[in-house]
């Protein structure tokens, strides 16, 4: 049976359509529907239950524990109170997971990982850390609520006193309904937003408190995927897998090849030769959406790659997608074709992101 977050009953009573995702029963959408949830997030404010995601606490210096070797971003110079997005790679340079590292104190860290990867990530950290005792998986005691949207700061300012001081990709410890917890200015929608880490069994009261503000709508994983595709954020299992390098996914700015990390030799080798396929973004000429598994063809009909993510974009009013293409076909502006055995649809390669009006850094 799938796992349930501490807000499962809340989702049911709101009338959510619940689906299994990464081993969890999660709300796909609420009765207002994905298009309305999209507007709520992009124009006002919405809340996601992301308690399924994983959190690890690591105590000790980045160097002495070996933590620095597990992730692709430099941690030694990371300021306390900041977040860094990066990857844990396998020896082949493929992605075990994408993650965010929080530096809580000079010698204390939180690492946030994908729900479906918690077990293998924990295994990787336990194996690679020089002091395994310094590692603690707190996923099942830590709920995560994402409050996102242009009004999220306004909505949270009474619940999280002092939240106005948080810059993009930083965090602080705040008193929220009697608990001292981490709140970060991070998210997965391209809008201004915050993530609240809260004790599992008390998370419902934060959920209720945020939703008591009638401007806020609950939003599910369905719209979350639409929102992240519109701003070209990768989703593990789609743009990133054990067989894909961050180089191919166009994410090399989150890898520092000058530092030591697991998978670095393979990464540098691929960097020298250049990957033969690259992630490309494309816009359908119609409302028809590309879907994972569709084939990508060149304008002349030659097989050129495959789609890994796709959706109808409410912001653009057309289908949008991302896929891996042989690099000779990846020039911006080029026409490509997506489809399957039943249909072919023309599309155009465009620069990222699809949606450029996000309030992320406001």
């Amino acid at each position, binding site marked *: 049976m799938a796992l349930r977050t501490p807000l499962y009953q809340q989702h049911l009573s709101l009338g959510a*359509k619940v689906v299994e995702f990464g081993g969890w029963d999660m709300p*796909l*959408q609420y009765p207002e*529907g*994905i*298009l309305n949830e999209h507007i709520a997030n992009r124009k006002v404010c919405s809340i996601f239950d992301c308690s399924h995601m994983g959190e690890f606490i690591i105590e000790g210096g980045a160097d002495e524990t070996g933590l620095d070797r597990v992730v692709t971003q430099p941690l030694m110079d990371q300021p306390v109170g900041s977040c860094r997005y990066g990857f844990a790679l396998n020896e082949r340079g493929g992605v075990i997971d994408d993650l965010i590292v929080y530096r809580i104190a000079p010698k204390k860290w939180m690492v946030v990982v994908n729900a479906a990867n918690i077990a293998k990530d924990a295994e990787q950290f336990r194996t690679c850390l020089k002091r395994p005792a310094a590692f603690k998986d707190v996923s099942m005691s830590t709920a995560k609520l994402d409050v996102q949207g242009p009004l999220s700061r306004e909505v949270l300012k009474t619940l999280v006193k002092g939240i106005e001081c948080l810059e993009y990709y930083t965090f602080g410890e705040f008193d929220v309904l009697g608990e001292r917890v981490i709140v970060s200015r991070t998210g997965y929608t391209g809008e201004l937003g915050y993530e609240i880490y809260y004790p599992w069994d008390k998370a419902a009261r934060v959920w209720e408190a945020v939703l008591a503000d009638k401007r806020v709508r609950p939003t599910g994983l*369905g*719209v979350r*995927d*639409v929102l992240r595709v519109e701003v070209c954020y990768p989703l593990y299992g789609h743009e990133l897998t054990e067989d894909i390098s961050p180089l191919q996914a166009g994410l090399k700015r989150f890898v520092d090849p000058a530092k030591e990390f697991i998978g670095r030799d393979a990464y540098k080798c691929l960097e020298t030769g250049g990957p033969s396929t690259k992630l490309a973004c494309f816009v359908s000429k*119609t*409302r*028809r*959406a590309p*879907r994972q598994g569709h084939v990508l063809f060149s304008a002349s009909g030659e097989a050129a790659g495959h789609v890994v993510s796709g*959706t*109808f974009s*409410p912001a653009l009013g057309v*289908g949008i997608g991302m896929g891996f293409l042989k690099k000779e076909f990846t020039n911006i502006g080029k026409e490509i074709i997506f489809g399957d055995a*039943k*249909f072919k649809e023309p599309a155009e390669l465009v620069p990222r992101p699809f949606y450029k009006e996000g309030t992320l850094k406001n």
Partner: protein
Amino acid sequence: MEIIEHYLYTKEHEWISIEDNIGTVGITDYAQSALGDITYVELPGVDKEVEQFEQLLSVESVKSASDIFSPISGKIIEVNEDLADDPSILNRYCYDKGWIVKVEISDSDETSNLLTGDEYRNYLESLDRNDGGESTEE
């Protein structure tokens, strides 16, 4: 779920209303609700011949694509062009303004393979009892 008593239905949640050998076809309230916000309708060509229970067209919601099947055999004589520009009509008015195609019926005996309004209601209740069961969603 709204059901129009005098329409006929399929187990795949299409409806047909027949007048003078012309069948008007659409999807049911149950189908549009299960699909969620409909964002694209692939309209078939006029004059196309269709067979009963074979794929008629596909519709897409934000997160999925689904096939719609023809309740009857015949020739398509009209398609609802309004759906191309505003697929949400299917969500809002599935039994009237949201009709999809009109078919000139080639074999009216085939209606015996369809469900009456009452039978369709019972069928939906049986799906509910089985907690899901058949659905047009992929």
